[in-house]
């Protein structure tokens, strides 16, 4: 519908640049690198602009390109780490009572392993649905839901241990 329209590209970039930058920043943890990743990603996006037929999928497509660019830039090891859904690591993080004490929410989120942190960030930052998160990560919707629910459970536990939780959070059994 929009083809490779420069005006449409401009509008989309202006609408999503901020949140995509923050997503890249969250992945890269470095502002300069985040901007470079975003720049490369959107240059690629522009080259393939007309490939997206459903405008409703545009936003998720952009997130996926930013994420791919981050892992392309980071190398295979990092990507494998991100794809390795290891519940034990998550459980270990959740069990580290001492280090979580006094940490802020941001720091605790940073401690979550990438396979759990990423979908949670995508949902909260981009407002993506579980289906859209699944498309960005290249996994099934069920897998995305499982990762997000486990991430939230772990986050609740960690916040409770950190002593910053104003709510009475009892230890939950992960579904």
């Amino acid at each position, binding site marked *: 519908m929009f083809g490779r329209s*420069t005006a449409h*590209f*401009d509008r989309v*970039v*202006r609408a999503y*640049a*901020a*949140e995509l*930058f*923050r997503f890249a*920043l*969250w992945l890269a943890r470095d*502002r*300069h*690198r985040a*901007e*470079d990743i*975003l*720049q*490369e990603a*959107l*240059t690629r*996006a*522009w080259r393939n602009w007309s490939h997206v037929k459903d405008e409703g999928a545009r936003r998720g497509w952009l997130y996926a390109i930013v994420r791919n660019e981050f892992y392309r830039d980071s190398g295979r090891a990092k990507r494998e780490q991100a794809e390795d859904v290891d519940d034990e690591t998550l459980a270990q993080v959740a069990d580290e009572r001492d280090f979580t004490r006094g940490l*802020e*929410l*941001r720091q605790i*989120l940073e401690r979550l392993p990438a396979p759990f942190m990423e979908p*949670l*960030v995508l*949902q*909260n*930052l981009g407002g993506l*649905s*579980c289906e859209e998160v699944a498309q960005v990560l290249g996994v099934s919707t069920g897998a*995305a*839901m*499982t990762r*997000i*629910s*486990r991430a*939230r*459970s772990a*986050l*609740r536990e960690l*916040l409770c241990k950190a002593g910053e939780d104003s*709510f009475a*959070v009892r230890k*939950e059994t992960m*579904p």
Partner: protein
Amino acid sequence: MNELEARRQLLADPRRLSAELRAAIEADPKLSALRDELLRRDAQLHRVLTEPAVPEGLADRIVLNARFGMRSRRLGLSLAAAVAAIAVGVPSYLRLHDNRLELARDQAILQHVVEGTDELADNRGVAPAVLRASVAKLGVEVRDPPGYRIRHLANCVIAGIESRHFVIEGPDGIVSYVILPGAHGGADERVLERSGMRALFARHGDVTVAVLGAESMDRGELEKMMRKVLA
């Protein structure tokens, strides 16, 4: 839906609820409390995630680089390093690189003026002293040629850089000027055309000055307009 499945779905997305999940929440105060807590937690999380400031002019730079073929700073630096290894090629590469950067900036200026129809239509009038003071901040002096009226003046972000854009009207018609700091030292002068508009770009030290008029104006007339207004 059993409680375990309801909890799993709630934890996966507390904002988008199926009818079945909504009914389960209404029937179970524990699920309702969990949802409230998750929504509050998500609001905190959203605040944390949107806390970092976004670099000024980011979208402009992305559009400029993506559309006009420039690569990222990282890739640019890698290219520069690779080329630097070939000592003979360095000077010509740098000239080419600067020219490319300059061309991209010039195209961004032209695009800004072509698409800024509101700015072209604005005719509120600006006092010459105001224009002089505004462009002086960029190290540029302007004259006040008799018979000309300043229709519009604005600080615009072009290619991620704050610039001055003013429009004057006189015997030669309506002409736009853009002053963009941070020139890379590429081609001294260049003429570009787009959408019925012709533009002359010139480098004055580290500032790019552009004069933009109707396509009917040739290069000589644009040069004359540049000399007439810019000291």
